[in-house]
Every structure is written in C-alpha cells, then in structure tokens.
C-alpha cells in the first residue's frame, strides 16, 4: 500500500503533478490540460474529443474516411428501437428517464442514497430490472446499441461531471479513481498514466498513445480490431489486460470510480459519441 502511494507520487512529480497529490479535481483537470498543451501546442482544446487522432495526422485521414459511412449507424438504429419498444409490462425506458434519451451528460454522477457513482449502463440496467427485464451484459451487444442511441441524441451536450460538496464520499470516489489511474499493474507493470500521460504521443510498437483528456466523450466505439461496438468499460478491460493485469468487473466499484475520475478530466468538452477507432 505504502509502496503504491510512493510510486504514484513519483510519477505525479515526473509529469509535473508535483502538488497534485492533494490537488482538487479542478486543479487536476488544469494540470492534465496544461501538460498536453505543452506537448501538443497546436492541438485546439476541443479537438481532444477525437482521441488519438487529435495528435496523429496519418491515422486521422483513415478515420475521417471511415466516418463518411459510420460503422456505428446500425447500433444507433438498433438502440432507438430498444428505446421505443415497450417492456413486457408495457412500460418503456422513457418511464425511467423522463428527460431522455438525450441524457448522456448526466453520467457518471454521484448518488448520495446509494453512496456510489452511477454510470449510464448501471442506470439502464436498474431500469430494466425495476420493470422485470433481465439486465444486459456490459461490454458489447445490446447495451452498446442503446448507449449509442443515447450518445447520438446527446451530441449537442458537453461533459459535465459534478463532484458534490455535500457528501465527502463523492470526492473520495474521485480520489480512488485517480489512485487507480496512477497505480502500476500487471506483470508488465504499467499504470494508465505511464501510457496516456507520461508517454503520450509516443509510439508503442505500431500504436500511438493518445491523451487522457477527451477519452470519454465518444462512447460506445466501433473498433475495427473488435469488428463491433464496445463500451468504455470494455476498453478499460482491454487496457488492463494488455499489460497482463486482471481486468476488474465492468461497472464494479473500481471501474465506476475510474470512469468518474477520467470523465471529469474531459469536463466542458463536447460529447461526440458514438465513435469509431482503428
């Protein structure tokens, strides 16, 4: 435990987070932004929503060609019919989400009663279960379809993660997510920050490492490597497993807090999901 904290501190210092161990979420966000601004002075802030393509002009050309016939279109259509189709009891998703479907920017958020971070897929499954339906599996398939539809309908919104001051556990959850981000894991011993902060823009074999800011704005993603849509937590799993670490449960506490921390770093950036990646 002590060791983890020490390692974290060391990396934080390397990337200029010297006072960040105690920094507020807003200070963290500024540190992230300034760090990337120094590395990529010509990238406009809003362009970070395009992920690694903000800093990879060659990859970007291929990606823009792909976006002309978006591979996520069928997912949006399938998601819309899920939204419009009644459950066995006659109710629909709209009964749980009266403001929906354009509700992406409300997630993830802190829920005081439950004492935990609530992500959109969790809320969707809670709705299903409350109406006698089976919960959906979290990594791909139907969940990716309905979230694609919601993401698409929310495209004019901006990321707006709030850490309420009236419940100290909310900040604790954020801090847990931050710690997760900086902790080295797996046989290959990488933290998220080793790749997406310390070595951002560098090439790992054939992959350019993209910035953390903007990573959450465009989910779910159609990934050519997957040959299908996948959710944000599926990507967390992949990034854990590629360093031979054990993945955590999708929407379990670790990944919920990680999503809370990571999405906060994209605050004020436009939502542009669903997305496509190579």
């Amino acid at each position, binding site marked *: 435990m*002590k*060791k983890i904290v*020490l*390692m974290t*501190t*060391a*990396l934080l210092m*390397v990337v200029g987070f010297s006072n960040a161990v105690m920094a507020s979420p807003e200070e963290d966000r500024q540190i992230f932004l300034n760090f990337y601004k120094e590395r990529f002075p010509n990238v406009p802030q809003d362009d970070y929503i395009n992920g690694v393509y903000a800093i990879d002009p060659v990859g970007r050309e291929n990606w823009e060609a792909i976006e002309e016939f978006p591979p996520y279109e069928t997912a949006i259509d399938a998601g819309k019919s899920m939204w419009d189709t009644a459950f066995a009891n006659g109710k629909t998703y709209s009964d749980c989400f009266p403001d929906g479907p354009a509700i992406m920017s409300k997630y993830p958020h802190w829920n005081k009663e439950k004492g935990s971070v609530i992500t959109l897929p969790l809320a969707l499954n809670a709705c299903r279960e409350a109406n006698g339906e089976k919960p959906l599996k979290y990594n791909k398939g139907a969940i990716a379809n309905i979230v694609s539809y919601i993401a698409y309908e929310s495209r004019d919104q901006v990321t707006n993660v709030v850490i309420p001051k009236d419940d100290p556990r909310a900040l604790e959850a954020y801090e847990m997510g931050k710690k997760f981000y900086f902790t*080295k894991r797996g*046989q*290959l*011993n*990488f933290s998220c920050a*080793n*790749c997406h902060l*310390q*070595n951002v823009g*560098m*090439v*790992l*074999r*054939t992959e350019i490492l993209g910035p953390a800011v903007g990573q959450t704005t465009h989910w779910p993603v159609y990934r050519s490597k997957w040959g299908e849509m996948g959710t944000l937590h599926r990507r967390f799993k992949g990034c854990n497993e590629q*360093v031979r670490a054990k993945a955590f449960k999708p929407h379990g506490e670790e990944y919920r807090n990680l999503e809370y921390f990571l999405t906060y770093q994209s605050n004020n950036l436009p939502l542009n999901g669903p997305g496509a990646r190579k």
Partner: protein
Amino acid sequence: MTISKKHLVGTTGLLISVLSIPLLTTSMAFAADAGNAVAEGKDLAFDRKKGNCLSCHMIEDGASPGNIAPPLIAMKARFPDKAKLRAQIWDATAANPDSPMPPFGKHQVISDAELDKIVEYVWTL
C-alpha cells in the same frame, strides 16, 4: 516521504544484488555457448510474447519499433559492466521507479535463462 522512498529503493536494490549472485553463475555457464546464446537472445528480445523490446526500443534491423525508449546501440560503451545491463532488464524500476519498462526478471515475464541470453544479445549491439 522522501526518506522512506530512499529506503524503499535501497531495499529493492539490495534484494536485486542478493538475487543476482546465483544468476550470474548461470550466465557463466552459457559463456561457452555464447554464439548460440546471442542468436537465441535476439529471437527472445524480438518475440512479442517474450521481451518484445521493439515495442519501445529501436534495435538494429527490427521492424516497426516503438520510440518510447532510447535506441539500443553502443551497449558495451554504455554498460561496460554486464551485471548492470542485466539489472536494468531484470527490473528497470529499481533505477527509475517511473520507468514504463516492464520488470522482466522480477515479474517473471521471462525466465532467468532467457534473460541471460537477452543480455548476451543486447551486449553485442
């Protein structure tokens, strides 16, 4: 904080030197077979399931290297002491806690015998 960090690094360093004594003996056994060890070491260093050093380092004729790390050239000049080279590959985080380089020996990504061969190869670069 700083004091305990020093202490931590110190202990790790000590642990490595204790562990490397028997390992060095192993590598001497290979000395007779050095030519083979170099060739096998190269295969191990390039193998994506083993060293996969190319994902970060440029190495002579290796295809599509990453650029996270310094190119592996002039190794004898940079590491006159082979044991130091071995220690770097065994656990890069001992010298630099932030190093993204996997601790190949310490985390048993590769076996000690494999590590010895990689060292033989890298030392020829």
